[in-house]
Structure formats: C-alpha cells, structure tokens
C-alpha cells in the first residue's frame, strides 16, 4: 500500500512540476514547511493574524491535506473553472431596480459623517498592526 502511494506520489509531483503548479514560497518537495517570510507575506496580504505557532502548524496541515489532490493523475483532463461551469450565465436587462437605501446601509457603519461611511485614512499601515503583538491566538 505504501509502495503504491509512493509511486502515485512521485508521478503526481512530476505532473505537478510539468503543469507549473506554483505555491508561492511553500517547499516544493512537499514537506509542507511554511517559512516565516511566507507567513508575514500572507498576514500583510490578507490582514489575518497568525498569532501563534499553533496557527502556523494548522496552516501546514491544511496545505498537506490539499496537496493530496496532486495524487490524482489529471493528464489530458481539461481543468474545471468552477462547479458552475456548464450552467448558463444569466443576463439581466439593463433596468434600475435597486438602490436608494442609504439609511439601511449606513446602519452597518461604526462611524458615519453626513451619509458617508468613515474609514481610517488610506490603508492601515503595517507598522500599526505589528504593535498589536502576538498576544491573541487565531481562534
């Protein structure tokens, strides 16, 4: 059983290599180690907080789990776009049917100035996020 899995593993990674499958920064050998650099990059991009080593470990497990997809030989198979790909894309007529609900929308906003949503200036600078420190764990 192990031999077969190993065979599949080898073939899959070769196929993955050929398809040019890229996972930015992750170890292509498949050991699933995620570097600190990648964590920082992800935190900046997605504004999530990998507060602890536990969270990073969970991420690595998730990647390893998804990597098992590579065990499938997909040579000559057209990639799927989405599960909807053979549905018909509905085309709506160009009529105005919604809008005009500013009061309702503004209820969602923490701060409001004269019917404008209020947001912090520009984007939150990265340094401010750092100040929060690794105190809270990602639940």
């Amino acid at each position, binding site marked *: 059983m192990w031999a077969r899995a190993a065979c599949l593993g080898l073939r899959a990674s070769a196929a993955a290599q050929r398809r040019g499958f890229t996972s*930015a920064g992750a170890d292509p050998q498949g050991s699933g180690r995620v570097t600190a650099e990648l964590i920082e*990059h992800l935190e900046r*991009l997605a*504004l999530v907080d990998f507060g602890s080593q536990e969270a990073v470990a969970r991420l690595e497990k998730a990647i390893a789990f998804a990597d098992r997809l590579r065990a499938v030989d997909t040579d000559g198979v057209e990639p799927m*776009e*989405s*599960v*909807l*790909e*053979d*549905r*018909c*894309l*509905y*085309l*709506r*007529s*160009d*009529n*105005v*049917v*919604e*809008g*005009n*609900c*500013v009061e309702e*929308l*503004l209820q*969602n906003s923490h*701060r409001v*100035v*004269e*019917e*404008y*949503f*209020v*947001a*912090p*200036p*520009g*984007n939150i600078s990265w340094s401010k996020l750092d100040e929060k420190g690794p105190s809270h764990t990602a639940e």
Partner: protein
Amino acid sequence: MAAPVLRWLCPGRCWAFARIGGCSCHGRGVPTASTSSGKRGQSSVARQSLITAQEPRKGDREWAAVVGLEIHAQISSNSKLFSGSQVHFAAPPNSLVSFFDASLPGTLPVLNRRCVEAAVMTGLALDCRINKKSLFDRKHYFYADLPAGYQITQQRLPIAVDGSLAYSVCVGKKLGQAVTRTVRVRQIQLEQDSGKSLHDDLRSQTLVDLNRAGVGLLEVVLEPDMSCGEEAAAAVRELQLILQALGTSRAIMAEGQLRVDANISVHHPGEPLGVRTEVKNLNSARFLARAIDYEIQRQISELENGGEILNETRSFDYKLGCTVPMRDKEGKQDYRFMPEPNLPPLLLYDSASLPAGADPQQVINIDRIREQLPELPSVTREKLVRRYGMLPEHSFALLNEVGLLEFFQNVMKETRAEPKKVASWVLNTFLGFLKQQNLAVSESPVTPSALAELLNLVERKAISSSAAKQVFEELWRSEGKTPAQIVAEKQLELMQDDEALEQLCRATMEAHPQVVMDLKKGNPRAINKLIGLVRKATLGRADPTAIKEVLERQLSG
C-alpha cells in the same frame, strides 16, 4: 542656463512636451527606502540631481521611450455591471448603492446584458477577436472603497483580444502634415469600478461614497507601441471619439468616465527595454501628454546621472507638474487572482453557432452586433474628404467638437456655397466665436440656417466677405435678426451700380495721377493702392475684384 538637450527619439516629432525647469518636486523624487529592487537586486538610491542644470555629456547616445496605456472607460448603461442600482454621475452619497454593491453577505453578482454588448461593440470597433468564452476572476486588495476586498474582473480570459487602434499625429511644424499611427490593443475586459474615497487629512479619516462601486468599466489595454506623450494623447483622443460614436461610453475625462494609467520606460535603441514605472491618476486630457513626457524625461535624467529606475507606481501631481511616488504602493502587489466562483463562463454566439430556440434575451449574437455598429469616426472623416474634397485636418477638426459636424452639414443643406468656404467659415469664424465665449455648439446664437443665408449672400455677391464678417458679428450679438435685415440696416450691400463704379474709378484715377503714373511704369503695388482708394470712396461697398477689373479695363482702354 543651458536648456535640457533632447536626445530622445520621438518619431512623431512632439514639439509640445513638458518643460521641466524649475519643478520644485525634485527634492522628494526618490524614496529613501526602496522595497522593490530594480535590476541588480540592490536598492541603490540615487540623489535625483536637478534636471535644470543638465549639461550634455560626452558619448551620450540617443534615447527611445516606450509608452503603454491602460484605459478605463465607464460603460454608459442604466444600471451597474452586476447589480440593478443606478449609474449616475452626481447623486447624494450612497444613494445609488444596492446590498450587493455594499458587499453585504448573501448577495450575488448578476451580469448586465448591456455591459456585455458594450464590450463586444467596442471590441469589434477596435478590430479585436471576440472570445466566445470569457471568464470572470477576483482581484484581491484592501481599500476602503472596495467593500468586498476584491474586484471582479477578467484576468485569465478577457472578452476581446488582439485588436488595433489607428490615430493621427502631426509631424513637422505645419498643421497639414499628419501621419497615421497604429497601436495594438492587447485586450478589452469587463470589470467593476470602485467607490470614491474623500481623504480628510485634517481629521485623519477617509469618507467613502459607494455610488460608483460596481459601475461597469471597459479596460482597454494598449501595447507599448507609443513613444511619447503626444502619441499617447492622440490615441486616447481617438479612443474617446470611438467610444462616443458607439455610445458605449460617454468617455468624459472630467467626470471620471475615462481614466488613463501609463506604463513608461526608456532605453537606448537596439538595447533591451528598461525598467518601467506606472503613472496613475492621469485624468485630464490636457495634462496627459505633459505627465508622460515629464516621466520620460525624469527617467532619462535619472539614468544619465548614473541612477536607477525603480519598478514603482507614481502619480502625477497637477499642481507641481511632476510625477511623485505613490504612498501606498510600496512593494509588488500580489492580487491573488482566483476564478469568480459565483459566475459561470460568459458564452457568446455568432449566427452560425446560435442555439436553436434560445431565448433572445439570454444570448448575445456577435454578428448581429457587428451589423448594427454605428459609423466610426475614421469612416465619417473619410466620407467628408471624399464627398466635399475637404482637407483631412478639417475633417478632424469637425469631429473634434460635439455637434460641429452636424452644424456643418445643416449649413451645407441650405447653401450653394463651396464646401471649402463653408468649412472655413465653420472652423474659423464660427468656432472662433464659440471658443471665445466658451460655448458649446448647442448654445450657439447663430443657427445653421442663418449662416447658410449669410453665405448665400456672399455667393451671390450681394455683399463682400469682409462685410459678411461684420454681419456675422451682429448675428451673434442680436438674436432674431436675419442676415438680410442686418445688411439692410448697416447698408453693407455691394455696389451693384456698374455705371457709378465706373465713374468713381475714373474720378479716383484723375485725382491721383501719380499713382497712375507708377502703375504705368510697372509698379505692381500701385494697383492695390488704387483699389484701396476706390474702396474708400465707395465706403467699402464695392468688391475689390470688381474694382480691379474695372480699373484694369479703364487703364488699358
């Protein structure tokens, strides 16, 4: 101070580009901590030396600049790309926003048919290949005016690719020397617009209005086939005219309906392309060429002084007249593109592939759209040149102002005057008055009929052309009067009495024997003097050509 020497090749001969001397932004030009590494992998910060103090160095070779454009045009539609809220320029903040636009959970995008048609029309007009299957993707980045945290766009497979756009630039100093250039259209894609942010630096906050969020945009990507600001501006102008003729976008830059980002790099001819910078926020037709030329010159100076060009995003500061690095764009952006999971592929058909019995509301037939394409500006111009024997630059000028072509054609309908004369009156006198008072053609106090009537008077030789100019001025000022009335009031009719003219000519010649002597001696200018004298005697009511004819006859007889 030596003027900056231009060793920059611009085949289109752009004589109107930015003079940079005295720009005070040099001090903060280059960021001190550069995060993007440029070619050598080190961040070397070159002190940007004053451009005004350039001296030509020995062995300097010529430079060539390469300019590519990404143009965003707001689609002219009633509702937004993926939702049914209204598209309108000025409205109370957040009043044209649906739950989907505000990115509330549980909402899904529903594609607007009109936007797809607009994209296909534009693709066909730019000679593109329309992809019968195109896909939607998510482009992720965080900004307050992008409530979903991503923009739905078409990155993998856009709706139209591989087209071309022909535009005209002036070469040489004379207006008449124009050449046609082409720029390749890499692709056209459908995407969502973002909302608007108003930055309140005083209170350290940003006010967000989502009225614009979700409005359909056509992004037209032009390959870097242009080499200077003037070419880029001409290409944008032609695209604007095409979009307006198609009705797919009103493309008014002042209302944010047409926005341009430029990708600019410089290199020595024969060598590989240089590092490029992206210049955003080029939202004014007037400053487009200037901003691009400034950036080209900045890059040349930087490289000539041993510096490096960083692959960064810059913004054009209109007040200072220079490009500055943008604050939030440090480091390369990773947009983490992924397929939009809520939208199946967009399928388009042609007459051959149209499925039988399909709901016409649900399918788009490319061939039908092609058949119904309105006339493109280039075709209109060609027709004008062929039909009226007009000069090409006049055809350009007629199409360059809203309503002017229609005005011209209406005048032509009611007059027998030569097209060239009519064109000259419309483009010089009429347009001149409009521009002086900053009026649109639709606001003109002079109607096409009035101008036609005036031109008929000139044609019949009822009045001279200089008198006609006076009449025109009066027409402009006082509403309701006809040219004929004004002519009568001001007594501008040309002298029709041949007998009286003959007498006047004889009398003038008798009164000025010296001039007649000069003329007989062969002085060519004497005749003009005589004509002038006779004209004065007739109080300007005689046609100079007629006077000349009579004088010459009398002199020889």
